[in-house]
């Protein structure tokens, strides 16, 4: 009936979203990749091909920083996967227990840090762990463990791990909520069938619930991956653009910021910045592809 006419309303409905999304997100993404192929020499933009990338990966001044940031970022991600997600799943498993009282209260309280900015949480932990203010030394001292205290954010060997743990603690709310939602959607009949077969308690979790929530675990893993490989706020807010001490907490996000904007004596370089961003893009893309083609397709088989 409507066939012969051009259906303008479809275009009108789609135009704003497609336009904004394309101009602000997709085009800049490609332009960034494009800018990475240029360099600025004597105020002029010159095409240099893959030169920027060779500098980034090969020239010691740059490469040391890049590989350091990448290595740190991998560690940052590993801690999130080992601490944040398992704790999130455990909390969700407890919260979804049908007979647990005050579940809503716990859920809200544990979710509160997640809604706060890294500026606030990062600063709070900086205070708590600082040797000057000394809450942590006092607390450790009061239980006779004073010798365990270290200025965790100030020492090269602990700073990155401490920050990863702070970040994990803050964002535990996200895996918790997603897994909690997934656990609630498991049909009661399946659990009852398991009970008849004598599968209860922890066993029921490992043998019935866990396989059923594997797709959700896949999703939180990839969300963690993407989030961690463009993380920036916590490190910048608590350690500054230089990601101290001595770059030990530098991750790709802070490295990108410094390259792009410069710091202290180094001038910002948009083209090298674009090269760093392109490298980050490649890393995230590989991660997402591994998830989509390697993991998710396999996980679907477990679904009901």
């Amino acid at each position: 009936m409507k066939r012969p006419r051009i259906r303008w309303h479809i275009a009108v409905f789609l135009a704003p979203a497609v336009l904004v999304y394309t101009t602000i997100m997709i085009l800049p993404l490609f332009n960034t990749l494009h800018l990475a192929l240029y360099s600025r020499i004597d105020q002029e933009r010159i095409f240099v091909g893959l030169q920027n990338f060779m500098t980034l990966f090969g020239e010691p001044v740059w490469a040391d920083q890049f590989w350091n940031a990448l290595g740190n970022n991998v560690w940052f991600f590993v801690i999130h996967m080992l601490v944040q997600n398992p704790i999130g799943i455990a909390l969700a498993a407890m919260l979804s227990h049908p007979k647990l009282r005050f579940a809503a209260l716990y859920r809200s309280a544990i979710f509160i840090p997640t809604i706060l900015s890294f500026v606030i949480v990062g600063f709070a932990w900086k205070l708590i762990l600082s040797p000057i203010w000394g809450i942590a030394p006092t607390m450790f001292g009061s239980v006779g463990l004073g010798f365990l205290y270290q200025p965790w954010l100030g020492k090269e060997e602990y700073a990155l791990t401490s920050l990863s743990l702070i970040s994990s603690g803050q964002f535990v709310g996200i895996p918790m909520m997603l897994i909690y939602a997934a656990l609630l959607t498991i049909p009661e009949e399946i659990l009852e069938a398991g009970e008849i077969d004598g599968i209860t308690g922890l066993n029921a979790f490992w043998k019935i619930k866990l396989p059923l929530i594997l797709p959700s675990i896949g999703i939180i893993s990839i969300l963690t991956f993407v989030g961690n490989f463009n993380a920036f706020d916590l490190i910048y807010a608590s350690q500054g653009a230089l990601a101290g001490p001595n770059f030990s907490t530098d991750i790709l996000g802070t490295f990108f910021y410094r390259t792009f904007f410069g710091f202290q004596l180094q001038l910002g370089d948009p083209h090298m910045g674009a090269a760093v961003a392109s490298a980050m893009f490649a890393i995230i893309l590989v991660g997402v592809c591994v998830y989509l083609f390697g993991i998710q397709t396999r996980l679907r088989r477990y679904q009901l």
Partner: protein
Amino acid sequence: MNQARTSPFNAMAMHGALILYTLIALFPVFIILINSFKSRKFIFREPLALPNAESFSMIGYQTVMKQGDFFLYFQNSMIVTVASLFFILLFGAMAAFALSEYRFRGNMILGLYLALGIMVPIRIGTVAILEMMVSTGLVNTLWALILVYTAQGLPLAVFILTEFMRQVSDDLKNAARVDGLSEYTIFFRLVLPLVRPALATVAVFNMIPIWNDLWFPLILAPAEETKTLTLGSQVFIGQFVTDWNAVLSALSMAILPVLILYVIFSRQLIRGLTSGAVK
């Protein structure tokens, strides 16, 4: 439920673990809040104690209030968040309606194209975004932030809303068409009110990251008159790091608005999650 699943011992262990974790989670917030109400001497002498008659002081809040910037930052954050949410919801819902309602060539591909952005962080394009904002003169305006956050929020919004709009009954829409209503009227008067819960869910998902973002305010709008609350508190910490009262009070005040928003919308968040909004 049967008895085997909850022995009293298990229940105790669960409460123990949850209480312990809750304490850890709230500890940093608690420390900031209680110390913001103390005089400087007591912030250092008894950092863990609650404020009492002797240690109570509002000096930090007075300093922050006198500075005045705080309210400007707060207002900027508010404008950016509300405007971005408005555009995300309006444009997202319109696109979702077109994708779910009409069959046209390229429908699938357009849906996939819009969904790409769910997995690719917009920060990667920062270099080109800044260049574009500079060339259009939008740098250091709130519009720069609003546009970026709108683009960032659209993919997930379209994805979630398309799912929900598929569930709106076709009979209802066709009845409206028989009555001679235009497609626009059907969308605004009929479909939008029906998917209101989904709109609220999308709003909640987008609200918190936009409010808390540090990256784009730092890069696109660092000027004094366009600073957001998150950037403002970050700078404030650097500037006033010797004025502990002011820093702690400013941070406490920065916590408050998100907390209020969360209390208002938390039920919506849970409902959205459990109804499968992000699966």
